[in-house]
């Protein structure tokens, strides 16, 4: 039986040429497929990045990040303008004087305070 096994193991048969052609064809097809898949994935990633960039740019435009932030000067003028409007009475001397008089009238010890 050992001889029989050896006889079979060592024997080679001629293989038709078309077998290799088919194997090669299938391997090449597989290579092409994997290349195409890689290309599709890269295109998909690039498209996603482009969409994300466009959306983020558009959202900045919508929220009105406008020109107020364009320079430090613009920013400062905007902030101080708002402060002045909101707390205008703090800067009005006559109003401060009236307020002080009223306070002193109600509590004379205020007059002695610095």
């Amino acid at each position, binding site marked *: 039986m050992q001889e029989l096994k050896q006889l079979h*193991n060592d024997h*080679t048969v001629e293989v038709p040429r078309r*077998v290799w052609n088919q194997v090669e064809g*299938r391997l090449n097809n597989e290579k092409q497929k994997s290349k195409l898949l890689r290309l599709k994935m890269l295109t998909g990633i690039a498209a996603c990045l482009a969409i994300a960039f466009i959306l983020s740019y558009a959202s900045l435009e919508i929220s009105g990040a406008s020109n107020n932030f364009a320079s430090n000067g613009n920013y400062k003028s905007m902030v101080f303008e708002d402060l002045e409007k909101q707390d205008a009475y703090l800067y009005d001397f006559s109003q401060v004087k009236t307020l002080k008089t009223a306070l002193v009238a109600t509590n004379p010890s205020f007059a002695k305070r610095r």
Partner: protein
Amino acid sequence: MELEKVILLCKNQDARAQKHLYNQYSGLLFSVVRRYLKNEEDAEDALIEAFYKIFSKIKTYKGQGSFEGWMRRVVVNECLMKLRKKRNFTLALEEAYDVGEAEMITPALAYQDLMKVLENLPTGYRTIFNLYEIEGFKHREIAEQLGISINTSKSQLILAKKRIRDLIKKKQLIERRG
């Protein structure tokens, strides 16, 4: 080119190395396929599929055991799959019986004669004879692979050997008369 180098190149999908490996082993592996599949077309299909699997799964070969053995296993599995798909893999379900060690078959036959004898065996007998006697699988492994009991595998092997012996005797008789 050294085999280790060829395997490494094949793992990197080098076309020249793949061709080299094919040239070196296709003849041997085709002889394995031919022992399982009688039909020439089926045998070629199985070899194509087996080589495709060898090249695409070569990364799973970790260098343990012989590479030829690994390839042979891929080829045998492919043949078994082909047989199962064709649904002609019907084992003669005789009762399993223990008849002790089977008689030895005379090896004094040329390869072509042996191939003819094997071709004349039913698919079930031929497959089990190939798996046990030629590939060296154990009955337990054959039973697992083919989804049959160990006793069935054993009895089929004994019957296959008997049939081979009968065929050889018949052939010798014909030759004497001739």
